[in-house]
């Protein structure tokens, strides 16, 4: 049974998103996703400063089994990537909601508006069951 945090927002592509300030949203992949992928060996990040678009690829995530696209759940500009994962990609498996976060994106409008189209924890749980 994979863990789903009640206070986060989710995408159908198994990313989570949460506001960490009035303009910045932190993004990662869910516990369900990391279980499906298996041991993560490399995360290809978008460049800091690059624009990302909701539902579009912003990088990739490689596990021992496969290389998967990393979709952005929101539209905005990348302001930070989790560089600790360059040396320790296993954090994505160990702490997908903590030290395994991937990217922080600054949105143009309010974070509430950017997160609104995403799934709540309950709705996300429904699609993983």
């Amino acid at each position, binding site marked *: 049974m994979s863990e789903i945090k009640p206070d986060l927002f989710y995408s159908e592509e198994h990313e989570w998103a949460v506001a960490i300030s009035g303009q910045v949203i932190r993004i990662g992949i869910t516990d369900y996703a990391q279980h499906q992928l298996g041991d993560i060996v*490399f995360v*290809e*990040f978008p460049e800091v*400063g*690059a*624009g990302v678009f909701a539902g579009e690829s912003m990088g*990739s995530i*490689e596990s*021992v*089994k*496969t*290389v998967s696209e990393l979709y952005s759940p929101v539209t905005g500009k990348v302001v930070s990537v989790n560089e600790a994962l360059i040396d320790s990609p296993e954090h994505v498996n160990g702490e997908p909601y903590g030290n395994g976060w991937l990217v922080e994106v600054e949105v143009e409008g309010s974070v509430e508006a950017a997160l609104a189209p995403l799934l709540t924890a309950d709705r996300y749980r429904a699609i993983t069951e």
Partner: protein
Amino acid sequence: MPQYDVVVLGGGPGGYVAAIRAAQLGKTAAVVEQEKLGGTCLHRGCIPSKALLRSAEVYHTIRHGLSFGIETEGSRLRFELVQTRKQAIVEQLHKGIQFLMKKNRVDVYHGCGEIVSTPGGEGGQGVIAVTDASGKAKQVIFGDLIIATGSRPRSLPGLSIDGTLVMTTEEALKMEALPASMIILGGGVIGVEWASMMNDFGVEVTIVEYADRLLPLEDAEISKELQRLFAKRGIKVYAGAKLLPQTLEIGPHGVRMQAERANGTQELSAERMLVAVGRQANVEGFGLERTQIRIERGVIAVNASMRTDEPHVYAVGDCIGGLQLAHAASHEGIVAAESIAGRSHEPLDDMRIPRCIYGRPEIASVGLTEQQAVERGHEVKTGKFSFKGIGKSLIHGSSDGFVKVVADARDDALLGVHMIGPHVTDYIGEAELAQLLGATTMQLGRMIHPHPTLSEIIGEATLAVHGAAIHM
């Protein structure tokens, strides 16, 4: 004056192969070469660069010996010995070509050749003047002429190449020591190979490419995977970046410059810069102006038999443009020699010429990319298989990459095969043969591939077109 049925101007892989084929067909033949037989391919291109790449790969493997269960403490790169090995390979092959010339009774004139007159011009006689290094000139009469003058590295307007800090591959191949860092201008075949090589030798590499992706002529998925793998190795790639030559600063410690990108200007600096923005056909300085030969977009115009607008004058290889590849040039040389001998032959089709790129991992492709296939009106279906599902690639120690097959859904024709992964250049020939024989993807997929081999991936990727890959 010495007289030959066929004189070839330029002794690279287009020229010397044409001369051998002409001699095989009973023609008297000579080659005029101003430097060394073997041309760019042997002395300044394919062979020396692949020799360096092989050393880079071995060094990488040794440094990662522990992943094979081998401790390799104390291993050390001796770049001067890497260069010695490369040079020994070049010299051995150079001797081989000299031997082939003797064996086939092809005379070699060392010097700079220039067309004096052509059989189609006034006087009706073909004459080449050859000036050797000491300035002595000699004239040679030809029945037919094959121009195979090759190409040279191109630069950008406003960018001066000093050969030390700002180099082309010609100088880079002769580097005596490695820099700590290098900017590579151009993310095409040459830039990508050098980036991979330098990175494996421990050099910090930044690639600047004007197009929005590396290898803009290859299938977009290949570019994407390569960029991902380069990012994994710490190679910086700035695609969609325009170099600003006026910002170039060359100082005692290296090179600084700026590149313009969609999201601002990028400052770049490194100890050295390699300019790898393509190659320019050699069409000047050998008397073309005295002929009716047409130059179109900087290259010599020829017909399907490699003949120029002058009767009895042919041209092959990089100087006629197209895919600037040694094996293409050699094949064109054979077509030209056979045309002269009155033999018929299949016309050359760029889509049948395999393209190989020798970084780590290797890239090989033949035929249409997915986008080209769509543009030509095919109903496109693709199949893709990852090296992660191939046992031999795990044994080999590199399971990055994939094979992508492009097919037409209506008749299952094999339109293109695009490979990125371990040793793919060694088995792209299988895909090419299947295309040549007109096999469908299903036929290729049903071929029994020996296990365990890397080539199993071709079977799986072609079966994947039909949703029938087994290990997926």
